């Protein structure tokens, strides 16, 4: 009775009710299968269906466009939105121009920030640059400052009369042209100060994993330093380098906050900002169509990345055990390299922080730092004592809006990260225990989808899905509710949370569970007595990382905001639009402190910023 495949085995079998009953009980009676089932359902409902509905919305007439499309009824099939976007007299302004702007920004940001991050990584990992300990603790701080905060500090230096209040330079009589203060140049520089971190994190990780013996072997063969760098080191870090490149392009094309702060004032639009205008106003269908194109653009680059280096990626970790490394002496280049790093940190960290803090104390922005221009008004002032008519409100700590936004932020980030982290552990459990099985793979793939989408585009999906009642009123319209913002934040952070969850679960050997299984522990008992106690540490650091990320989020929630739900980041964004930079800055500082403290705690508990990349 030798068989060679499962199929053959099944063919030899006779029909049996007992078998069918046992098979059914075997599947339903196993709680793990139940968890897998619910995981797949949840991911399908929260990711796939919204995506499909958004696609559908771009082909169906909505109420707002009834008058624009003669003879149409609500719900009719139409190509109106796509034509509006891609083949109308407006196409040039609403599509080609923003697309071109996005691409220009993406390309320049990549051209600058990838080499920047890689060089810093090389200096920090492979050379004998002095002060490494202090430098390495500071090198990622600029990345922790939310990118839109950096946009605000750019504004507080370069703002000119166009914004209603002066910046540092204009205030001192130095005229600042619009092209410097706003628009592509400013956006590119600010983004570079942020996205250098991708390249830094990836390339330094890859450099760390290369055994220095590989390079020493080259030296023994007679290669000089440049030759070693060119023919040994660079090819080995190439995969990491390419990954960083693709990620930087895709992220910088999708960023909203920086582009909105620095572009909108001079009508410089990119895809993300243009899309938000359409979704907030009309026709929304056009906005959805744009976000589909953005998703395709972003996921296209990421898939290109996997195609390009997917198979070669493996050797990035060769020689992972090589811990002893000989550092490359910089020699005469030591001083210039130090100066380079210090300038970088000065521009990306000290200056923005300094400017933000100082401006928050200024009575009239741009009027210098003389004592007569400084006050604590923006922080604690009362409206009747306002030294500057531009202050239309109490200082921050007396401001009920600030109180509400703080509460909203805390509520959102605590609840959001708690839910995300719990789901992340479950997803991690399903993907690690289902490794190589169909359900493990499909869970992994579905979870990955939010990662492909720029934050604004992702919230557009949720906007489309929940801005009206669904399932015949079973799910009410969630627009303007805290629940929608929470849901959107949670699902967007699924990829990171489940990654931290699966690395956590990977450390809990399956055998520990099997041993409990043999001892007679039920599935839930195993989870309660073995998995949860062991997963605790990883859970806490996963929680803190999504906590930080949700707390600083702007892009993702901008679209869903209504005044009662303002978070700190959106409130700051709002104030900066209303020509109240001092208050906006003060809020920024609060958020940055929040993030730095949160990160410190996460670090203590074993988390790393580099894991929350996104």
């Amino acid at each position, binding site marked *: 009775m030798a068989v060679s495949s499962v199929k053959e085995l099944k063919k030899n079998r006779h029909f*049996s009710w007992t078998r069918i009953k046992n098979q059914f009980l075997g599947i339903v009676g196993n709680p793990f299968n139940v968890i897998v089932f619910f995981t797949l359902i949840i991911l399908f409902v929260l990711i796939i269906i919204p995506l499909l509905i958004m696609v559908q919305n771009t082909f169906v007439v909505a109420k707002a466009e009834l008058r624009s499309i003669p003879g149409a009824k609500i719900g009719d099939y139409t190509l109106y939105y796509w034509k509006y976007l891609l083949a109308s007299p407006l196409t040039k302004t609403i599509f080609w121009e923003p697309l071109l702007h996005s691409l220009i920004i993406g390309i320049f940001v990549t051209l600058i920030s990838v080499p920047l991050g890689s060089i810093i990584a090389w200096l920090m990992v492979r050379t004998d640059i002095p002060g490494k300990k202090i430098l390495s603790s500071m090198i990622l701080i600029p990345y922790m400052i939310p990118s839109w905060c950096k946009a605000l500090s750019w504004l507080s230096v370069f703002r000119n009369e166009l914004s209603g209040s002066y910046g540092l330079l204009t205030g001192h009589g130095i005229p600042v042209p619009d092209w410097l203060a706003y628009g592509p140049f400013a956006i590119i520089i600010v983004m570079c100060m942020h996205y250098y971190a991708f390249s830094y994190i990836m390339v330094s990780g890859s450099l760390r994993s290369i055994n220095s013996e590989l390079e020493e072997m080259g030296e023994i063969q007679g290669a000089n330093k440049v030759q070693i760098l060119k023919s040994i080191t660079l090819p080995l870090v190439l995969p990491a380098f390419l990954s960083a490149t693709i990620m930087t392009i895709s992220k910088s094309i999708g960023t909203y906050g920086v582009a909105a702060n620095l572009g909108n004032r001079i009508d410089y639009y990119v895809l993300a900002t243009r899309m938000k205008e359409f979704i907030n106003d009309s026709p929304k269908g056009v906005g959805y169509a744009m976000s589909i194109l953005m998703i395709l653009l972003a996921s296209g680059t990421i898939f290109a990345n996997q195609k390009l280096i997917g198979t070669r990626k493996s050797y990035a970790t060769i020689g992972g055990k090589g811990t002893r490394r000989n550092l490359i002496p910089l020699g005469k280049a030591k001083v210039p390299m130090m100066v380079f790093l210090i300038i970088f940190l000065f521009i990306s960290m000290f200056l923005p922080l300094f400017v933000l803090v100082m401006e928050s104390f200024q009575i009239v922005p741009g009027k210098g730092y003389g004592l007569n221009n400084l006050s604590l008004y923006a922080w604690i002032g009362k409206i009747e004592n306002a030294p500057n008519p531009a202050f239309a409100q109490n200082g921050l700590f007396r401001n009920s809006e600030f109180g509400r936004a703080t509460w909203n932020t805390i509520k959102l980030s605590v609840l959001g990260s708690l839910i995300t982290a719990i789901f992340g552990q479950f997803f991690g459990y399903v993907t690690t225990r289902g490794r190589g099985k169909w359900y493990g793979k499909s869970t992994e793939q579905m979870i990955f989808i939010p990662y492909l989408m720029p934050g604004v585009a992702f919230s557009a999906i949720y906007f489309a899905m929940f801005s009206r009642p669904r399932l015949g009123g079973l799910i009410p319209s969630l627009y303007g509710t805290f629940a929608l913002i929470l849901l959107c934040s949670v699902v967007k952070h699924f990829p990171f949370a489940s990654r931290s969850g699966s690395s956590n679960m990977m450390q809990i050997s399956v055998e520990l569970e099997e*041993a*409990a*299984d*043999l001892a007679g522990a039920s599935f839930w008992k195993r989870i309660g*007595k073995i998995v949860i106690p062991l997963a605790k540490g990883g859970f806490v650091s996963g929680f803190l990382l999504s906590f930080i990320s949700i707390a600083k989020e702007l892009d993702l929630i901008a679209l869903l905001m209504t005044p009662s739900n303002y978070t700190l980041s959106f409130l700051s964004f709002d104030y900066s639009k209303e020509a109240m930079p001092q208050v906006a800055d003060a809020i920024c500082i609060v958020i940055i402190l929040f993030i730095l403290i949160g990160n410190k705690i996460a670090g203590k508990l074993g988390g790393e910023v580099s894991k929350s990349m996104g």
Partner: protein
Amino acid sequence: MSRIVLEHIDKFYGDNHVLKDINLTIEDGDFMTLLGPSGCGKTTTLRVISGLEKPQGGKMTMDERTIIDADEAFYEEPSKRGLNLVFQSYALWPHMTVFDNVAFGLKIKKMKKDEIEKTVMRSLDTMRIAEYRDRYPNELSGGQQQRVAIARAIASSPKLLLLDEPLSNLDARLRIDMRAELKRLHKETGTTIIYVTHDQVEALTMSTRIALFKEGEISQIDTPLGIYTNPIDLQAADFIGNPRINFIDAKATFDGEKLTVKSPIGDYDFAKDKMKLDEEIPQDREFDVVLGLRPELVDIFTEDPQHKNTILAEVYASQPAGSESLVTLTVNGIDFLAKQIGLVEYDMNQKVYVVLHPSRMNVYNKETGRLIKFAKVKHHAGIDD
């Protein structure tokens, strides 16, 4: 009390056929070792028995009770099979003390507290680790962790104890100690044990029976002595025994009554009753065979011992190692190894007399690689035929 029967077990991982029609009976009180190189399916078989893997085909019974019936998609839960398993990694729960690790299963069974205390301490005593009851696993050495893992497995008095390469993470000395420990445990408790290893010394020293695995199939089931004396094929012969067996190419003819072998180390006749006649043996024509000759069955003399199976050989090299000495010999241009007890030393190229024992040689059909002539089982080497 606990007789395990596996019938036609088939297990696939995707298209990968990892267990091919496994049939195995383990008698009550057996110390059955599943032996084979890595990736041969022995651990999978153990996991199928434990219930951690579900085979797609086949049946398993314990004392006539059906445990697995793949045709009916019936798989008894692992915890209801009355067995326990010691993992290769020990799988001790790092967040529990030694006591809690051992007590876990008893608590699940809702045993009374004072009884748990007694049972846990008894099994800790058996494994001689009672003094570590309040330590955490990471505060113990590898050998102590191993003992905790075994204590945990025997605490529930399983009818069947499964051990998955339990000694592979220990150093050589501890391994010898633990072998003795396990052998005692088997004798004292009378529990049926199934033991997985790739180490033939472990298999030979501890088992009552050995199942030899090869690429997802069982190639031979026998006592340690049986497996050692008559490995079923060339691969098994090569795998079992240290130093490894000598293979010597030869020609043979079989006339239906006797096998005549012509080899560089002499010509021999073997009677039909010593042969494995269910194997493929060409008749009335010359075919290629391989002689299997255990190094310890080669006796070396410096003076002619006047024995009918004496041949003259030359010493190629000798390696005295205290309790035993290995000597490489050359006869008619072929090399083979001899093992002598004690410290013996020969000069290079020294002429020596070598006595071989044809009745204790194995003969394999070179084409099929299968054993066609049994070696006589004998406990001590000595001068006989």
